[in-house]
């Protein structure tokens, strides 16, 4: 008791020192910037200082004790566990893409805010305290003990199924995090994308390799502090600028009506209408060409060939020849390819021909039916994200690390509290950046574009983060002429708000911290599933503790390198499937976890059947409806998007688990007393 208090006080002191030092570091850089230190050096300093910091915490917390390595010795106080879980949770997607998503999608984007916070109600009420009472190491551990069946009653089939789900879900997720690390590092320091990946990897490895859960926990607390500071400083600045109130959560209520008025104005502005008409024409032109296939494909190819001939004959400049050759190379190779490409371009142009949707209006649609469909999709997505949150192994794993069940319950409260500190200001940021762009950028002259536009337009030539073209050639920026990628929003916020470059570096460091902290937790979840559940529990139950930790560290290395390799290939398909990981986790693990605690009759065979069918239904639905997996929107049930496949997977998993359990033999007395044990107070 007294020792725990002293420990808490010591930790608080350490992290207060840390925060102070971080503030001093920021101040020093700001002064150096004033003295004329080049931007790229600030970027380097931020990257290396934070990466070295994480590595240093890893070195100080190194351990090879099993309990320390897997569950941080179960000594993490609730408040700090909450902070660490929050950092674990706030991924690159939350930090970088969520505000941009809200900017682009308006009310629809709020589904992520609701889903990613509401899931913690399920974690707190249905799962976390019982996991802590069980007091072992991994999620498959819990399922295998509850559904002890199979050879020797050790629950091996359920364990392996849970390991499989853990790996599939966490691996997709970790690839996205490492990809984000590469992007941030390469954009801010100018190093190559793959060099960026391996730099990030190095810091992840030093930390988790040396100290496992213990090192990760203390690094994540530090990372949370950086994330929070990096997110709040620019948001508060913008808030003070547009609403004269530095508290963004309170202030943006005043900006919303102004934004709505501006939106209404832009929707009927004659110049905007002119630009949209041009996009409609372009879309129509593509429609005509698609209709005239394959003749139009042939004609288009001949046109380019003839042009190339003409340029060569009149001995045009080398640049002209190259440009024409490139056009020929980019031209579709077959009529089929042309049909696909032109259909995409037609859709893209049509999308840009639409007037902007009002930001705060829920489910706008041309008719009631389409509006209803958007509402249903919103609800489905919210529930999928919630159920998925309550089944993500790297989050649930953290409930093992507190000293008692009571502290676990309190720790979930702190987790949600710390997540909300960031999440509640994300919609505020989106609204204020939108207002800024709609009022300051729109209507400005092309000859005086702000610096950040040209900087971010040139960062990634292939998929520009922001592109502004003078479509109607009037020299003035119209809203319809701006094409913006959501990811640029948070990264460019400091520059949009006119803050010094130091803050841009801070935001990059925050994004890096978000990606690294999540990647740490995920890698540990995967390598623990492999080393503890597969190697120790199935392959070699007689392994010594020393050997178990060593194997775990080796597996961590292997998993980290394969994830980094996959990420360095820039797999577009994996990245677009990250959202689907929530549906998959929810469908496979959630029914077995919850019914395992609340329904004594659930048995081994039922759990297996439930997990398999939840997984199968979810995968089937995604395969049939996700364009990247070869499905099409025509296969949708009730017009539900593939990302929400969990709304079918979870009920299917539940129903099958219940039905099969009832049809087979009831679990034995041992299983009953196990449940009594995890339900009993300490």
């Amino acid at each position: 008791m007294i020792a725990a208090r002293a420990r808490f006080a010591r930790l608080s002191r350490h992290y207060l020192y840390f925060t102070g030092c971080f503030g001093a570091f920021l101040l020093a850089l700001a002064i150096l910037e004033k003295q004329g230190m080049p931007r790229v050096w600030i970027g380097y300093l931020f990257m290396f200082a934070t990466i070295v910091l994480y590595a240093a915490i890893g070195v100080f917390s190194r351990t090879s004790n099993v309990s320390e390595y897997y569950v941080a010795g179960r000594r993490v106080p609730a408040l700090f566990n909450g902070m660490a879980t929050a950092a674990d949770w706030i991924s690159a997607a939350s930090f970088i893409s969520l505000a941009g998503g809200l900017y682009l999608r308006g009310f629809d984007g709020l589904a992520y805010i609701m889903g990613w916070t509401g899931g913690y109600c399920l974690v707190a009420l249905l799962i976390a305290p019982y996991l802590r009472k069980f007091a072992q190491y991994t999620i498959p551990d819990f399922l295998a003990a509850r559904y002890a069946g199979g050879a020797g009653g050790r629950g091996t089939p359920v364990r392996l199924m849970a390991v499989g789900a853990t790996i599939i879900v966490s691996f997709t997720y970790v690839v996205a995090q490492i990809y984000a690390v590469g992007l941030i590092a390469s954009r801010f320091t100018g190093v190559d994308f793959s060099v960026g990946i391996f730099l990030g990897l190095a810091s992840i490895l030093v930390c988790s390799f040396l100290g496992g859960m213990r090192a990760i926990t203390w690094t994540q607390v530090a990372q949370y502090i950086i994330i929070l500071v990096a997110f709040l400083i620019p948001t508060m600045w913008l808030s003070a600028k547009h609403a004269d109130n530095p508290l963004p959560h309170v202030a943006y209520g005043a900006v919303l009506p102004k934004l709505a008025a501006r939106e209404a104005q832009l929707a009927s502005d004659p110049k905007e209408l002119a630009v949209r008409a041009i996009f409609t024409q372009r879309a129509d032109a593509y429609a005509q060409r698609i209709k005239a296939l394959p003749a139009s494909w042939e004609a288009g190819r001949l046109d380019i060939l003839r042009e190339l001939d003409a340029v060569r004959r009149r001995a045009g400049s080398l640049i002209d020849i190259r440009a024409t050759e490139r056009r020929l190379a980019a031209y579709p190779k077959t009529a089929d390819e042309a049909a696909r490409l032109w259909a995409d371009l037609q859709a893209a142009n049509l999308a840009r021909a639409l007037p902007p949707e009002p930001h705060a209006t829920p489910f706008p649609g041309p008719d009631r039916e389409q509006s209803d469909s958007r509402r249903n999709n919103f609800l489905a997505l919210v529930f999928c994200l919630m159920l998925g949150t309550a089944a993500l192994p790297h989050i649930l794993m953290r409930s093992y690390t507190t000293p008692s069940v009571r502290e676990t319950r309190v720790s979930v409260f702190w987790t949600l509290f710390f997540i909300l500190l960031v999440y509640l200001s994300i919609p505020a940021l989106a609204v204020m950046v939108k207002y800024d762009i709609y009022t300051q950028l729109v209507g400005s002259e092309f000859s005086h574009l702000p610096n950040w536009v040209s900087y971010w337009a040139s960062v990634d030539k292939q998929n520009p983060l922001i592109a502004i073209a003078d479509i109607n050639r009037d020299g003035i920026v119209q809203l319809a002429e701006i094409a913006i990628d959501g990811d640029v929003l948070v990264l460019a916020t400091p520059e949009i708000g006119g803050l010094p470059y130091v803050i841009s570096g801070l935001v990059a460091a925050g994004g890096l911290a978000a990606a690294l902290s999540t990647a740490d937790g995920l890698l540990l979840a995967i390598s623990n599933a492999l080393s503890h559940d597969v190697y120790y529990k199935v392959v070699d139950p007689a392994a010594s503790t020393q050997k178990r930790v060593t194997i775990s560290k080796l597996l961590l290395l292997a998993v980290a390198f394969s994830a980094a390799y996959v990420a360095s290939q820039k797999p577009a398909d994996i990245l677009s499937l990250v959202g689907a990981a929530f549906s998959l986790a929810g469908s496979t693990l959630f029914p077995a976890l919850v019914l395992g605690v609340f329904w004594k009759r659930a048995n081994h065979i039922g759990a297996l059947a439930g997990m398999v069918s939840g997984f199968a239904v979810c995968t089937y639905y995604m395969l049939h409806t996700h364009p990247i997996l070869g499905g099409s929107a025509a296969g949708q049930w009730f017009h539900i998007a593939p990302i929400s496949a969990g709304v079918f997977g979870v009920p299917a998993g539940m129903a099958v688990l219940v039905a099969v359990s009832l049809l087979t033999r009831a679990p034995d007395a041992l299983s009953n007393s196990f449940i009594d044990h995890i339900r009993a107070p300490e």
Partner: protein
Amino acid sequence: MTMPTDPIPLPLPASSAPVLDDAGAAAQRQLAVLGARSRHWQRTRRLSFVLLALWLAATFCSVFFARELAALSLFGWPLSFYLAAQGTALVYLAIVGAYAAGVHHFDRRYARELGPGAAHEGKTARGETP
């Protein structure tokens, strides 16, 4: 480290309470523990269901009726936007907080029910109250 590391810890039957003078007292003690445990579980379960119902209602209503609620406004926010962006999230935080406080209260009641000289389960629960 007092944590069980290896095989799955067998659930503690209530009889693992300290050895008592005679068999009758032991049986009575066991019954008392079992009764207190089951009352504790019933309270916890009831609280969980009430809070889950609140969770479901907050989530469902603020989304399902969003178009109707958009007409109302709260400090400049359309009500439905406020609920989706902040309101429900704060309700979730309150739910998690209420659960932690509620079950902590049940834990103390459980320890009281077992009375002084309670079994080790009771002691740990009381030892943790600040």
